[in-house]
């Protein structure tokens, strides 16, 4: 009896956290799975008492040409801006920072981190102005005699991918800076004595040593990029048409612009499942730290 009451007293402080997480995190996830099987709408009778319609929303998803397109755009966006862009830029910057003189190092890291610290809506305005047809990029191109296109209209995916690299590289740079600082210098020196050139040392010594940081960082940047909304919404609004509508934008538009909450929820459920799969892989990689 004494053991039980002590056990209860120990878990009481966890209660507020459990209630908040259950209501506002688990609740919406459960609701998302349930809502995706209903015809919930923003207004009208279906808003008050949504009806169970089974797999109709998912059938509509598969039949809707916008959904596969949006799924593909999301994959392209995540792969090019996070997996390739932010990671390669991050590790490149981390490496360069190590061999730079102090003033250059502080200038470069401050500037890169500033783009990451800015509130997302301000970063989005800045990127919008930069890529606008009358923006900074085209002014620069005009300076060397090139008439730049309307980036946001003719190549919207390229614009949002570059903007997201600009916005998010700081995170990877910081993770890799910390990782590189922990690579024992004896390892690379030994490889150098054995006659390995810079590229060989990077491929066979440095990268294998920091592989855990690489996998962690790949997972985190993927999850962060999967949920990017504001940057794309402000820059292109998902357009022209649906040419830059990644899944978060599509879910928002279906739910609030076209008032199909049930349909939007089905898209949200797909995102939750994709995010969940990535999270499980990530947590398995981190396992030793919890146990």
């Amino acid at each position, binding site marked *: 009896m004494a053991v039980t009451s002590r056990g209860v007293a120990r878990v009481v402080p966890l209660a507020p956290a459990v209630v908040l997480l259950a209501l506002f995190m688990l609740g919406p996830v459960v609701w998302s799975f349930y809502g995706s099987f209903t015809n919930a709408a923003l207004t009208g009778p279906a808003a008050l008492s949504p009806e169970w319609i089974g797999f109709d929303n998912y059938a509509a998803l598969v039949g809707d040409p916008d959904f596969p397109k949006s799924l593909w755009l999301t994959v392209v966006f995540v792969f090019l801006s996070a997996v390739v862009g932010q990671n390669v830029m991050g590790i490149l910057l981390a490496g360069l920072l190590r061999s730079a*003189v102090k003033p250059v190092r502080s*200038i470069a890291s401050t500037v890169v981190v500033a*783009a990451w*610290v800015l*509130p997302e809506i301000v970063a989005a305005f800045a990127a919008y102005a930069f890529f606008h047809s009358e923006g900074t990029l085209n002014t620069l191109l005009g300076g060397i005699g090139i008439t730049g296109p309307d980036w946001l209209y003719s190549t919207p995916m390229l614009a949002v991918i570059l903007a997201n690299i600009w916005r998010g590289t700081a995170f990877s740079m910081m993770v890799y800076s910390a990782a590189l600082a922990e690579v024992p210098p004896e390892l*690379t*020196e030994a490889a150098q004595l054995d006659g390995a050139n*810079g*590229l060989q040392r990077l491929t066979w010594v440095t990268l294998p040593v920091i592989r855990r940081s690489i996998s962690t960082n790949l997972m985190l940047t993927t999850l962060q990029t999967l949920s990017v909304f504001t940057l794309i919404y402000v820059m292109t609004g998902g357009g022209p048409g649906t040419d830059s509508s990644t899944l978060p934008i599509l879910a928002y538009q279906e739910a609030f612009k076209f008032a199909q909450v049930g349909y939007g929820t089905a898209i949200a459920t797909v995102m939750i499942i994709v995010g969940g799969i990535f999270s499980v892989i990530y947590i398995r990689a981190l396992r030793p730290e919890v146990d």
Partner: protein
Amino acid sequence: MTDTLTRPAAPARSGLGTLAAPRGTATKVAANVVLLVIALCFVLPMAWVLVASFDAEATLSFGLPDAVTTANFAAIMTPELTWLPLWNAFVLSAGSGAITVVVAVLAAYPLSRYRMRFGKYFLYSVLFGTCLPITAIMVPVYALFVQLNLLDSLPGTIFFMAATSLPMAIWMTKNFMDSVPISLEEAAWTEGASAMQALRRVVLPLMRPGIAVVFIFVFVQAWGNFFVPFVLLLSPEKQPAAVSIFAFFGQYGSVAYGQLAAYSLLYAVPVLGLYVLVTRISGSAFALAGAVKG
């Protein structure tokens, strides 16, 4: 490796070469030059915000103003346009920051101090929560808020934002708490203090910098959050700066670029200040990412 890099190949390669072992001065010079070029690319979009806000005839392009003015700031500094949204942003951020810190400290204490059978599973769920893309759940959250009659409610939004930052906050707080030696509490216990008294009198004072970092982390996230208040708060007089600045962009953005930039700057400055404060407290510019790394 260099073939896959997006930057000019030759300097990048020599730069990465030094990553393994520093070589001649030519390599170092190249690394510095490449860094400065990258820094220039990164600073250009941000520089527009700064320059346009002081430009009497601002355009969308970066360019030195013919006439420097503070008229853009004067034009937007009205109660309904700026001060009320900034105040709302402060209430949202400080409110969710305070709730998150209190709840996270309470939850972190048993997780850090006792060996519990389910503690591990709880931590796994928390870790899972840190990964959940919040954007993905906003449509169901909206539906849930309609059912709970919480739509357009400032307290409802505050509690939701507190809940979404809670997993990361619990994770960070537990790590900070783990580094406070347990022997000090044991002394308090032998003098008859309860666990909660030991937490308040012994542990909390020792982890004050850690708590400050968690609070600022949550505050900065909430201050910059656009999507959550955009979906959950409908009346303009309740909306924080992130949302009203977007409304301003929609209404006047195509004409009053200078004012848009001035508003953006005014709204971004507190966050930049707080970030500098965090780096001072934790002694490293990379504090937030370090905390994120766990």
